[in-house]
């Protein structure tokens, strides 16, 4: 059975990953849609920006977030002054760091679904008097629906395991920002903590695999749906 502390870690992980998905989903959807359409000025720039978290060291992402959103950061100071919001070292901050890190994965999955949609259907919708936003809602979204869910699930599963950016930006506060990988790291720091670390690693592994299976199932559903 799980101990109270372990439940706490799992709850924190789920909370952080879920909020990260919610933060990232609308922006990732728009970015994926834009990237899946024909070329526009700044497309490669957007493509590069989206993929940046994939190639930058996570600790650097965390550091950049601190510089921007930390209490003395450009945006962070402004947020605290005007709204009393501070993100660094909080659960919200952990979800933000996770959102940034899982953003490329999410965009890629959703973009695949958008790109698999026959562009002819958009033309058809246009001659049936549907405007651009209408086409996005009535054709692109429903057809990409399962791929869209797959992107969310993949990002959620990956978000459960986000480490470097989270620990840098949100630190390792039990009950607040201590997610599974951070708890594993903390356990390893303690003498004789290997057994605990191994248990937590088991959870982490199981969740990640379950997430992948769900995402794959959704992708398969998506492909079936798009075949006429």
């Amino acid at each position, binding site marked *: 059975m799980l101990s109270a502390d372990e439940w706490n870690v799992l709850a924190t992980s789920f909370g952080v990953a879920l909020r990260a998905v919610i933060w990232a989903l609308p922006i990732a959807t728009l970015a994926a849609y834009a990237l899946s359409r024909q070329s526009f000025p700044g497309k490669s720039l957007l493509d590069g920006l989206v993929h940046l978290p994939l190639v930058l060291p996570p600790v650097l992402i965390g550091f950049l977030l601190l510089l921007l959103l930390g209490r003395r950061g450009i945006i962070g100071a402004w947020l605290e002054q005007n709204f009393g919001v501070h993100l660094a070292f909080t659960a919200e901050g952990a979800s933000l760091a996770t959102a940034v890190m899982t953003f490329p994965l999410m965009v890629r999955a959703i973009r695949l679904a958008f790109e698999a949609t*026959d562009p*002819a*259907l958009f*033309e*058809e*919708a*246009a*001659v*049936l*008097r*549907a*405007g*651009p936003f*209408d086409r996005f809602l*009535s*054709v692109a979204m*429903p*057809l990409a*629906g399962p791929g869209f869910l797959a992107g969310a699930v993949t990002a959620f599963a990956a978000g459960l395991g986000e480490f470097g950016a989270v620990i840098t930006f949100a630190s390792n506060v039990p009950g607040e920002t201590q997610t599974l990988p951070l708890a594993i790291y903390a356990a390893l720091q303690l003498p004789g903590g290997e057994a605990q670390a191994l248990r937590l690693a088991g959870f982490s592994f199981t969740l990640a695999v379950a997430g992948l299976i769900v995402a794959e199932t959704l992708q398969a559903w998506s492909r079936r*749906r*798009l*075949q*006429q």
Partner: protein
Amino acid sequence: MTSLQMDIEQRHGDFVLRAAFETPLTGVTAVFGPSGSGKSQLLCTLAGLRQLQSGRIALGGRVLDDVAARVHVPPHLRGIGLVFQHTRLFPHLSVEKNLLYAQRRADQFKPLMTLDQATRDFDIAELLRRPVRNLSGGERGRVALARAILSAPQLLLLDEPFAALDGPRRTSFLVKLRHIHEKFGLPLVVVTHQIDDVAALADHVVGLRSGKVIAHGALASTATLSPFQSLLDQHDVGAVAPAHAFRGATSVCASHWIRADHVLLATQQPVGLSARNIWEATVIDIKQEQNSLLVSIDAPFGRLFSRVTQDAAADLALNPGQRVWAIIKAHAA
């Protein structure tokens, strides 16, 4: 002036579409030409799906594209319906929802028919609940056409709408299109590479080859011109004749394409012949072809062509101005 005016130049890779013509909106216009002549591209440009590179398109006085004046009306605001050759039904919607998709977006325009009428007219009541992936080619075509009508367009473009149909189904579809045009006064522009479709359906014709308009105008007068005839395969060379000129044929189409190969000539009035359609005509012109002669004759209803062998022409001693009898088997019509 209620006409469609196009004067465009559109480059796509090595292919250049240069089309300058005007066609009245009071009839059916057929865009005719061999495959690869740019017919579909012309329709897509007209519907606004391709950004025009140079030129101008106006529909009944409304400017849809004018590159010089930086006017481009996007496709969803043009009120031009388009039914594609490969019918593009939405795979995530049932047949009924596909129809409703069009109807809901047209509610501020004067409808051409109600949903009930459309399902009855196009014989799709049985299909309404079905997902579109389970439809046959012919069924898809009917649903796509019904959907286009429900979007209440001012002009309907059809790209090879008969591709999936043959025989009697094709004829009944042609009749249905003609009926839609007459009942709703809906102008149609139909792309086809079958000359029989042109004769059965069109009042006006635009002949295209390699991206260029080489003939356009009223069908009866344009079809006999040599630039238009040059678009035809040798065995398709012929002329258009109104259906009412024929006896013995239970025809449902307004007119027919009469191939030169199906017209026999006699220098004396034939007797004791099973053919019911024999007309007195005058030889206008005789043209040498590779192994035969193409004889143009003036029949009571207009120009016809007859293809005869060299030997036959010599035996009959055919000459311009000569009186002949033209014989057509009714089933050839």
